[in-house]
Each structure stands twice: as C-alpha cells, then as structure tokens.
C-alpha cells in the first residue's frame, strides 16, 4: 500500500489538548503517554502513520501549529 500522507509533529509545541486526535477521520493520532515534553504535556504523535491520507484536518484544527502535513 502506498503512503498517501505524512504528519510531522513539533512535539515541543504540543499541549496535548487532543483536538487533532478527535478530528482525525482515520484515527491516525494518539497521545504519547510515554513521553513528556518541555512544557509538561504528553504530546500527540502518529500512532498509525500508514492510515494517514494527508487531509490536513489535524493541522487545521491544531491551536499551536505543532503539525506539518506532507502529501505524496
């Protein structure tokens, strides 16, 4: 299966509000409970990167611009 899209996180900006996770249509994202960033939050990451279609809804809803989206 070819990868359609890719999300890159600037984890230090993430405040773990969970909005990107709630709006992702393919449930690609999740909070990384094993990691705490400099601001004290558990940042979001791509749990199922292969399911990403590059729709950029997560980045559009992110209040902290922690997400960069690439499309094939």
């Amino acid at each position, binding site marked *: 299966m070819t990868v359609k899209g890719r999300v890159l996180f600037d984890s230090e900006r993430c405040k773990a509000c969970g909005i990107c996770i709630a*709006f992702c249509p393919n449930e690609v994202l999740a909070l990384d409970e094993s990691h705490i960033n400099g601001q004290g939050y558990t940042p979001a990451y791509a749990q199922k990167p292969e399911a990403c279609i590059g729709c950029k*809804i997560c980045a559009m809803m992110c*209040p*902290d*611009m922690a997400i960069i989206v*690439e499309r094939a």
Partner: protein
Amino acid sequence: MQTVFERPKSLTDHPFHYCPGCSHGVVHRLVAECIDELGLRENTIGVYAVGCVVLGHRYFNMDCIGAAHGRAPATATGIKRMDPEKTVFTYQGDGDLAAIGMAEIVHASARGENITVVFVNNGIYGMTGGQIAPTTLLGEITTTSPYGRKASVEGYPIKVAELLAQNEGSAYIARTSVSSPAGVIQTKKAIKKAFQVQQKKLGFSLVEVLAACPTNWGRAPVEALKWLDENMAVYYPVGEIKVKEA
C-alpha cells in the same frame, strides 16, 4: 512528499502562551495566512487589544502596536488616517471590544473607518480569570456569576455583529466559528474578504469569530468545541450579516 501544511510566514517561531485547546492559536494562524496570501505582510500594521492577545506582537511577524483597553479601533483609526495605504487591523476579544471598548467600536463602524477588526468572541473574560462578559450566554456560570447569568440581574448577551451591521459605515460584517474544520475554512474566507474590503476602501469590516476558552469554561478542549457548536453557535448564528457592494 510535498508539504501541504506548514507555519505561515507572517507568524514568528515563538510558541503560543495560550492554554491547551484555546482557539486564539487557530485565529492567529488564519489572520497570518490571509496576510501571506494577499502579500500584505510588509504593508500591514496590527493593533492588539488588552486580553489574552496582549502578547500578540510576539507572534505576528509584522509591525504592531498594543492599544489601551478597548481602544484598539481608536488607535487603528489614527494609524489608518495618517497612512491610508497601510493595511490596518485590530485583534480584540469580547471583554475588550464588547465591554470597555463598546463606544470605540460602534463609532469606528459608524464613521466607516477603513479598518479590519478580528473580534474573537469566547463569551468570557479569559486573561483575568473567567469573569462574566457582555457576551456570556444566559445560565453560564463564571467566577462573577456563580449561580449562572440571569437576564434579570446581568441582562442579555450582546450580539455585536448584528449591532454593528446596522451602521451605514459597516461594509462587511460576518460571524464564523472555529469549532470544526468547515468552520475554520469559513473563518479564513471571511477574514480574507474583510481584508479585501479594506483594500477596496469600502469601509469598516469586522469578523466575529466564535471561539472556545476551555480553561475558563471548565470544559475539556474537545468538549468545549462541541459546547460551542451546540450552544454559542445557536444564540450567535454564523454567516455573513452585511456585505456592501462597491
């Protein structure tokens, strides 16, 4: 792989100080994207009001000035009249614009000042700790309305967009919401149109953006956006309220 979404050039690299889930970040980005797309960055002056946005000069990569509480439209009027070729916008919250700054905004609109106002309405005073604002919905519990807002005590919430649309000087008045991806796209279109109205010198333009304040509402970020959709967007209907043609 081609990058389809990244930080706009009109924003600095500084991380936002806003609370998790605060809609200010989204509105900042939309304003910056519109300025980028219209190629106005070198020619824009932003006026920031008192409120959570008071540190706006850290984030917007352009000339900017902080105004006294509620007086951003007056400051913007001065700048625009001195240098009409500059694009001037104010960025104000509801505590600033609808309470202490009500006189300034109504008169700026009545005079048809050729400025753009981005009005972020989250129905509460954010920076000072969640006090009741003129735009707080009835029944809402805040630190200064602990039993919920009552019409008999605090009166009714003010619909600022409709109020200003009555003025002849207003050329473009719209209300949008950033509670969903569709709302974010609509907000961007409205802000862009407001800047274009200013470029065409048609008069006063204002975009009221319904926004979430999860911290002071006492709701989790995702839940706050849902509440915004189900309650605020019902009392404050979204859409273009006034569009004056050239």
